[in-house]
């Protein structure tokens, strides 16, 4: 079969993807530790700081996460065709139709799907939700990181309530990211196996393949 090669993802998108994905792995790991510190020890001393170290990694990863999201925000408007929001969000009749086509494909009802160079719109919708969750996660995070800052207090109180309420939402959102990561990995691999468009490698080299319509 002949394939058409498409340049789907810019370098910036790929960089953002990996910064985002790896920072989330670090944030979940350290976040779980902050929630339930398991390295309990009776040893005291000023050279071991398990909680401080975990929080330090969490905060640095939080900044990486924030940087990645800001880069993505820019790409939503100024990225290539596949990276802009109207290509993958259910905002046009064509895109809404794609959601249903993809659902049929995923539930083994249809075999064709509705091929896209960019994201399919079902995935795209979830990515859109993920960006919103990320915005909430970083706002609650910075609200907790700079508790004295009146600016973050303004946002935090408006969106979440007290520090404790923000912390609770921050914790719940962690589970969204965990569920997303698991489902995302499954579906990406499933698609890679099923549609043979070079999906997994595309997030490394930016290139996707489409069967040539003869």
């Amino acid at each position, binding site marked *: 079969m*002949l394939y058409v090669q498409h340049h789907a993802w810019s370098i910036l998108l790929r960089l953002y993807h990996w910064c985002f994905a790896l920072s989330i792995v670090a944030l979940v790991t350290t976040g779980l530790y902050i929630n339930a510190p398991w390295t309990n020890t009776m040893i005291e001393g*000023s*050279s071991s700081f398990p909680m*401080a170290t975990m929080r330090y990694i969490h*905060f640095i990863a939080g900044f990486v996460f924030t940087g990645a999201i800001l880069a993505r925000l820019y790409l939503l408007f100024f990225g290539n065709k596949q990276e802009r929001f109207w290509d993958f969000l259910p905002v046009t009749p064509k895109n809404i139709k794609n959601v249903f086509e993809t659902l049929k494909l995923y539930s083994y009802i249809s075999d064709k799907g509705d091929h896209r160079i960019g994201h399919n719109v079902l995935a795209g919708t979830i990515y859109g939700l993920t960006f919103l969750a990320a915005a909430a996660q970083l706002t609650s995070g910075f609200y907790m990181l700079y508790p004295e800052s009146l600016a973050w207090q303004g946002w935090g109180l408006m969106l979440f309530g007290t520090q404790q309420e923000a912390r609770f939402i921050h914790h719940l959102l962690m589970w969204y990211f965990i569920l997303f990561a698991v489902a995302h990995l499954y579906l990406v691999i499933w698609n890679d196996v099923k549609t043979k468009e070079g999906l997994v490698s595309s997030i490394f080299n930016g290139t996707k393949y489409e069967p040539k319509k003869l």
Partner: protein
Amino acid sequence: MSRQFHNKEAATDVSRRGFIKGCTIAAAAMGLSESMVPKLVEAATSPTRPPVVWLHFQECTGCTETLLRASHPDVGSLILDTISLDYHETVMAAAGHQAEKSLHDTIEKYEGKFLLVVEGGIPTKDGGIYCQIAGKTAMAILAEVAPKAAAIIAIGTCATFGGIQAAQPNPTGAVGVKDLVQGTPIVNISGCPPNPVNFLGTVLHYLTFKRLPALDKLGRPRFAYGRKIHDHCERRAHFDEGRFAEVFGDEGHKQGYCLYKVGCKGPETYANCPSARFNDVGVWPVSVGHGCVGCTEPNFWDSMTPFYERLPGVNIPGSGEGIVTGAGSAGKKILGVTAAAVGIHAAVGIGKKVLKGNKSEDQE
């Protein structure tokens, strides 16, 4: 004092309430349960309790002063009135031969039973002539009294480790009690001055349990010197997160940030100051904005100076900046790199458009 004067009024000056309060403070400092307080009270008032002899050598009397200057009298009077002090140069009424006789009587009559408290360093150079009382050198007095005591409490950093007169170049060859006395158990209550509560706790422990409290490797009671100042300091969160007073009186100092950069030696000093606190009004140096000078440690005049400069090489989490400050400066760089990446992306995009027009990059 009471035993000396048989002054009932003086003894009842310490109201029973205040007396029990003093015992409770000491019990708390030792980590004993409330239910032990009656036992301490009983031991402190038992008619068979051992007398206490207090010797002063090279010192400033600051240790005695802290006992006397407690803002409410419970702790001080408990030590001075209830626990019988048969010889204390600063507070006893007797003088001259009378005083010397009292000392002699006590150490003969209570040989092997009395508690000896030593305040001050002991000069050893030139035969110990740099400190003499009643014509005898401090060395000679100590050599005479120490072997007869049941136990010795060295109070203050001078008696424990030599103190300020032992600082370089130590012109009088001053040393602490433990360098001269063998065979009699010694407890070191170091500090310049030490917290009276720690002294009282040690005495009550001895009276109640008939043995000395557990000691660390420098002979200090572990209930008081078992933990570093830094590991129990109320400013510790500011240390971990990187908020410091840079100079006295600056914004950080006003905000109550960590005093590490203005010389606090808390990270290297063992004492219970942050929890026991001083003067019965709940203060200690760090709580009032002055760093710890490390006064409970041996050689602190040499090793902890300059007092207002930071210790080198103490591990601050977060790449040496504190975790929030450190993450903040790393964060600025990360966001800077993000901005640069976005900028490059935009520039390349515009550049390509200018060079190639809007050609598709698809290939077969």
